[in-house]
């Protein structure tokens, strides 16, 4: 049986330039714009599809036709709802998107710090705490238990960051 130290394990670089953190921060930066564009597109589609709005041009006519022909049971049920209920979809969607954008932005800031080799800092502890609270809100709004579990784990991680920061500060002031 091979000894663990002799085994070739893949060595990932997690912090610093050209690392997992660096790539993740870039992906998150792109994701922020993707989420925003998807929200705008979805809002437009819902507005056109739920209220059968057309502006006399081929594009909106096509969207309205597609919305009418869609057979998904949830969509059909949503279309049958009264206007007041349909209108509520938009603030709900806006709230979810706003939370998601804030989560992505905060996470990106933390990964940028990791990329710059700033790991145990007060800023990261504050970001982790804020992100976990936003994730709790997001999981409640989307009824997602997995996200709730992740956010609680992140909340625990935030305490580790706080302890790590305190240790780091003490280490820095030990001469």
């Amino acid at each position: 049986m091979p000894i663990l130290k002799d085994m070739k394990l893949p060595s990932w670089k997690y912090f610093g330039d050209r690392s997992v953190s660096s790539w993740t921060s870039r992906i998150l930066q792109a994701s922020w714009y993707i989420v925003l564009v998807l929200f705008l597109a979805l809002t437009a589609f819902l507005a056109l599809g739920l209220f059968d709005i057309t502006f006399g041009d081929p594009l909106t006519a096509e969207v309205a036709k597609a919305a009418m022909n869609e057979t998904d049971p949830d969509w059909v049920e949503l279309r049958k709802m009264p206007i007041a209920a349909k209108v509520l979809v938009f603030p709900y969607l806006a709230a979810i998107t706003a939370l998601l954008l804030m989560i992505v932005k905060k996470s990106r800031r933390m990964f940028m710090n990791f990329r710059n080799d700033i790991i145990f800092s007060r800023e990261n502890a504050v970001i982790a705490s804020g992100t976990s609270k936003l994730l709790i809100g997001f999981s409640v709004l989307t009824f997602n238990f997995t996200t709730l579990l992740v956010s609680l784990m992140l909340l625990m991680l935030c305490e580790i960051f706080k302890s790590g920061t305190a240790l780091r500060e003490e280490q820095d002031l030990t001469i």
Partner: protein
Amino acid sequence: MGIVFRLDRVLADRKMPLNELARRIGITDANLSILKTGKAKAIRISTLDAICKELNCQPGELLEFKPDLPEPE
């Protein structure tokens, strides 16, 4: 915390500048300054040993206890 580091007094007695001591014991001026100004949270035995060796003094000459001293920021 009532512990005061009396490095400035010992250095003045030996007529040695702070940067010279830093160079001799191999730590940065900034770190020695943290020690001198009382901002340090702890001191390594190895650092204390190096300072005592270089200044030919006892740890008791470097450290003083003052009961009513306020906490450093």
